[in-house]
């Protein structure tokens, strides 16, 4: 879409909103109580996860329904190396582990397309989850208690850094030559390859990039849980929530995921504690409804409204 005056104005407003949000989240631990900080931590976590998911799935159209596997692996690594490795090393290693895992499974998995890819990523995540569960059951360690975790504000700022890094990463990718290559293979992979886009390498790089931060997010979130259960950090609903947030927001920039995350996170905060099943119903309805009625999400709806307002002479279709 060509940059019009109206959209330039809108993007200035957006830039201001974004800066205000970043500032507010940064100041939160200094002014608010623990409950509010924990809530902010949740918001930052989903931001980091959703932005990372978009690097692969929004840019390339390869919809991953298994991103929780990176989160889970990262969390698991921190727990396994608990009090043996320094924390900063464990968190970085978690990111590296997720990236290496993505690089290893990426080549065969990314050959699979469309709905097959979606269901395959789900299968891979479930396979890893059940394998680790079986290994834990065999060794008799189904759950662990973590002593000596760092305090909430430290965790909060670690997550703040990850959310910022994920947002910058997506912005960087979306605006780069690499990002245009990804978009071209999303629209038509054969055509992109014919034009010289190294599709296999690009897809793999996007996959690895979108895996590293979720690995570190899982590692940092593991520090929050004093009682660690393997099944929870591989919960498929974590993948589903990332998709729902990104789908709600729409677009392939950083704007959609931020809007979608804010929106769905608010709903989940209101409903999760009191009515978890109702929340899950809403989550399912968001997935089905947006795919069916508004596949471009909030950003798409806004763009359509703007286009209609800026062309008032044209009769509505």
């Amino acid at each position: 879409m060509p940059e019009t005056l109206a959209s330039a104005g809108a993007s200035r407003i957006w830039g201001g909103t974004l800066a205000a949000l970043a500032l507010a989240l940064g100041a939160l631990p200094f002014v608010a109580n623990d409950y509010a900080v924990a809530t902010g931590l949740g918001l930052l976590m989903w931001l980091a996860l959703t932005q990372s998911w978009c690097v692969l799935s929004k840019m390339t159209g390869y919809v991953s329904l298994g991103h929780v596997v990176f989160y889970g692996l990262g969390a698991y690594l921190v727990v396994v190396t608990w009090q043996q490795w320094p924390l900063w090393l464990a968190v970085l290693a978690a990111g590296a582990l997720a990236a290496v895992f993505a690089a290893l499974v990426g080549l065969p998995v990314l050959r699979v397309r469309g709905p097959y890819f979606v269901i395959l990523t789900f299968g891979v995540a479930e396979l890893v989850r059940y394998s680790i569960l079986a290994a834990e059951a065999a060794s008799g360690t189904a759950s662990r208690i973590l002593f000596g975790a760092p305090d909430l504000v430290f965790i909060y700022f670690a997550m703040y850094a990850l959310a910022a890094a994920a947002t910058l990463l997506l912005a960087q990718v979306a605006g780069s030559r690499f990002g245009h290559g990804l978009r071209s293979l999303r629209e038509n992979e054969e055509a992109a390859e014919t034009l010289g886009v190294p599709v296999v390498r690009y897809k793999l790089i996007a996959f690895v990039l979108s895996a590293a931060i979720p690995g570190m997010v899982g590692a940092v979130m593991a520090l929050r849980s004093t009682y660690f259960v393997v099944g929870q950090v591989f919960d498929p609903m974590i993948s589903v929530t990332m998709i729902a947030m990104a789908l709600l927001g729409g677009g392939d920039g950083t704007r959609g995921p931020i809007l979608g995350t804010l929106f769905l996170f608010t709903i989940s905060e209101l409903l999760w504690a009191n009515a978890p099943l109702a929340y899950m119903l809403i989550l399912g309805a968001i997935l089905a409804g947006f795919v069916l009625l508004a596949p471009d999400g909030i950003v798409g709806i806004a763009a359509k409204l703007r286009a209609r307002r800026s062309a008032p002479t044209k009769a509505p279709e």
Partner: protein
Amino acid sequence: MTVVDTLLSGQLLFAALVTGSTYALVALGLNLVYGTLRVLNVAHGDVVMLGAYAGYWAFTGLGVSPLVAAPLIAALGAIAGLLLYRGVLRRMLGSGAASSVRLEGNSLLLFFGLSIILQNAAALALTPNNRGYSYLDTVVHLGGVAMTGHRHAALVIAGATCIAAALFLSRSLAGLTMRAVIEGREAAYIVGVDVERVQAMSFAIGFASAALAGVLLSMLEQFSPFSGFPYTIAAFIVIILGGLGNVAAGLGAALLLGAIETYGVALTSANLRSVLLYGVFVGALLLFPRGLFARRAARA
């Protein structure tokens, strides 16, 4: 008991046959829906789950034998399938972009959303607890193998339904028409096949067979609102291995999967059941990365 004894026991063979035939029945419906519409209904297993609840209510609430209620529940499933097709699917496919791979990926999310809705609505309305009942659990001995009556019934009904479906697809005109649509939708349309009617019919048959499978499974084991999804995965494995629209090969693939699962668990531990299922699933998809399109092209 040694490993060899385990492998040779008729008990295990019977268990594998029962599991395999129910997988075949679940896969039959998914195969027809996916074959004719090219949308992957990941909520298929949840229809199985709803069928199980229907069988449960018929037996515990109304005192009706699940075997008597089964045809009725299957009919209800068919009606639900038709309504879903007319209400949602036709509209989505009619938007013209249905051929693009991206929309297919999105349609999976649509059904995944539907699956989440069905599971949690069921949990909300029917409690998330496990349910089960005992019906026809008299033990029949046949050559040293102890078989309960309901397993027998499930094996016979599931097997017979699959064979009937295979005959329908290979002998009747309606069945051949359906296979034509599976092989090539556009080509079938050109030679005068009413593609939309065939798609509606396969949706109805697909949901009916899933509901029937649910009733049978409700006799065999405990179930909850969340027990449907593994059946979707199992059915998908069967379709990948057996082939689109090929019910006979699907029956073979389902028996193989039932054997892998039953013998695998018997040789290792029950903890590995899900590992085996998802392992076979990931392996099958990686071996046939384009699903059946590639194999169909190779055969043509």
